[in-house]
């Protein structure tokens, strides 16, 4: 918070007038939202697919997260050191996640031989429901259960997930090479992974 404010102070000074305009947009109808705290619920508006590629040298180091999987086993990203990791934040209640799940399950099986490991982070979910989801969409790779958003929080200083689903592609050096907001198709995700693996030589 304060860190962010401090680092942006020059920007603020540079744009005093503009600041004033933006101000109003920020202080708008808070009351409306506050009155109906739950009316929109988990209204994660499905953004259209949005991929951001980070050039080598500009890739934030991914935190080595760990936790209990949906199936109840301990899992740490440290186990996949040296591999390319596709980290997918999902929930069984999230419709866009359901749409992309078959493609992810398929890619996970296909790319294992190329050193690509898939790991899920199951957000705000109920374990039975999550297991049913994985079974339904043939998702064989493990998912860390994250009911209290601790895993998501670990990424706050790197490339935090801001949408569900969010997919991070972590290169062999453990650095985040690509971030995808929204559901990705089989070909979209494959080309992103290819780009990450290809540039690593």
């Amino acid at each position, binding site marked *: *918070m*304060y860190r*962010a*404010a401090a680092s*942006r102070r020059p*920007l*603020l000074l540079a744009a*005093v*007038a503009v*600041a*004033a*305009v*933006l*101000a*109003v*947009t*920020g*202080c*708008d*109808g*808070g009351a*409306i*939202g*506050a009155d109906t*705290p*739950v009316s*929109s*619920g*988990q*209204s994660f*508006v*499905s953004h259209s697919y949005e991929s951001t590629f980070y050039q080598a040298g500009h890739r934030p180091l991914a935190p080595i997260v760990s936790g209990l999987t949906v199936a109840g086993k301990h899992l740490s990203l440290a186990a996949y050191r040296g591999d390319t990791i596709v980290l997918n934040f999902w929930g069984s*209640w*999230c*419709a*866009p996640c*359901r*749409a992309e799940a078959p493609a992810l399950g398929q890619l996970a099986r296909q790319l294992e031989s190329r050193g690509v490991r898939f790991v899920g982070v199951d*957000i705000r979910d*109920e374990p*039975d*429901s999550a297991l049913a*989801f994985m*079974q339904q969409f043939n998702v064989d790779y493990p998912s860390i259960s994250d*009911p*209290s*958003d*601790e895993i*998501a*929080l*670990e*990424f*706050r200083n*790197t*490339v*935090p*997930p*801001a*949408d569900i689903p969010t997919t991070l592609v972590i290169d062999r050096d453990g650095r985040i090479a690509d971030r995808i907001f929204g*559901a990705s198709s089989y070909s979209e995700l494959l080309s992103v992974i290819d780009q990450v693996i290809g540039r690593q030589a």
Partner: protein
Amino acid sequence: MTSTESAAARATGRTTTTAADELSATDELTAAEAPGEVATVTTDRGQATGLGPLGWLRWGWRQLTSMRTALILLFLLALASVPGSVLPQQGIDPAAVTQYYQSHPALAPILNRLSLFNVFAAPWFAAIYLLLFTSLAGCVLPRTVRLVGSARQQPPRAPTNLARLPESASYVTAVSPATALERSAGLLRGRRFRISEGEGWVSAEKGYLREAGNLLFHVALLALLFSVGLGGIFGYKANRLLIVGQGFADTPTALDVFRPGRLVGPGDLAPFSINLHGFTARYVTSGPQFDQPLFYDANLSYQAQPGAPVRHYQLEVNHPLVVDGVSVYLIGHGYAPIFKVTDGTGRVRWDGPVAFIPVDQTTLTSEGVIKVPDAKPGQLGFAGVFLPSAVDEGGRLESAFPEALNPRVSLVGFTGNLGMNSGQAQSVYQLDTTGLKELPMKPRPLAAGQSIKLPDGLGTVSYLGYQQWISLAITYDPGQLPALASAMAALAGLILSFLVRRRRVFVRAIAAADGSTRVTLGGLARSDAAGGFETEFATLAGLLRTELATGGVTTPEGEPGIVAAARSVAGADDAAARTGSAADDCAGVSNTASTMDESPRASTAGGSGGSSPLASTEGE
């Protein structure tokens, strides 16, 4: 024409030497605001022809920075925010906007083109706001310079005829003119007057705080606008529903509604996490206040950041938890019945609480849905009603009280396509029944532990009990404190500028022919604020009298060696023309009478030529 007059006042304002001129110069600030001022541009240069391009620019600037324009803009700003509360807004409730598009297919695109679904980000809204800001800045900044100049100004030369001033008093004293002036200056300086001195006169001014107050008010106003802006840029607001026994972290994916400021990224949120351990709500159980809430109390633990010590907190309404500058408010609560859904294959597909949303705040009758998209052989969906205190109202169950005294759940089941696998995001609180078929189920209200076996071998649903949830509003507004501070400063400035008067006091001393010294004291308040100057002047006059009497100047009889006289009395003694002509237009007649009242003995003595004994005892 008033404009030329004000121009004249402006021209002389800086070099005025008489108090009367200063009076009109005082009005300069207000005169400059007058719309007619525009014509100054031409009269200044003596041109009868139209304004040049520069003239028009100046004219435009004056118009923009006039108080009238600022007020109009302020009103426009209020007016422009109206559509924001009448029409659904994209940033607040996108679903409502979509709905509006569907119900008004012709009108919606036009409204959208006018940015009416995003009013606070609309260019025309920005235009109003920017103009207002410019107008205020353009008004305040030059004024600041003027006020600073005015605050540093030295008191002007004393007017020749002090008796013409609204307040005046005169004395005859035995001390020399120089001593009299010196003592006057000392007295006034002691009363924190600003002093300037000249040949035979002392002039003093006080009340510069008025200018400071004025300045403070204007600067604080700008600071207030700026602070509000600060919150909009670096602040954020979010909402989160939290069921007892669950926790969350302040990160975008965990928030139900997240409205960041313009420069707030997903990683900029305060990294605290909260776990909810319990929630208690108490209600009035009898009397006219029946079923009104008494208190809400959420028992939670929090961590300021991962790895930080875990602290406990009792969260109550209007008693927010503040972590790292972020406030977390308790703004709502409700029930989350616990369900267990087993599908046709015998596998448990859901086992946990589902938040139901109150549809009736007084009885907390709540509605919610359960979606089981991965049930086999078919997807299952349920729409339910939760009654915290179910009572039979003529064959119909209703909730009679918000507390869960007799909780019951009734469910309607559906199977078919929930519409979730297409990827279209949907609310977890709504069931889209377009692809669903209602199951033939008896609408039997369930008590905790009861189940319904679904037809066609689709499975079983059980109601196991209930949990409570709270909703939290998370707000971070770095502009809040500065806004409060500047609002208070503005108020203080306003009060100062209303209460403090600028007032001037002049003293002249001349040696009279009989060897005594004639001292005249004159005073004037420069602003027409609430009275009080008369009293102050009277006090000053009294003090000056004492001051001029001390220093070994005593009469042989032991009387004070000074005679104070009201102007009217002194005037009769001195120069009849001076008072005679001015008596009518001077407002100070009654005030001088009060000065007289304070020293009735002295004034009579002065009037009857009691100055001669003083002169004879002049011992310095």
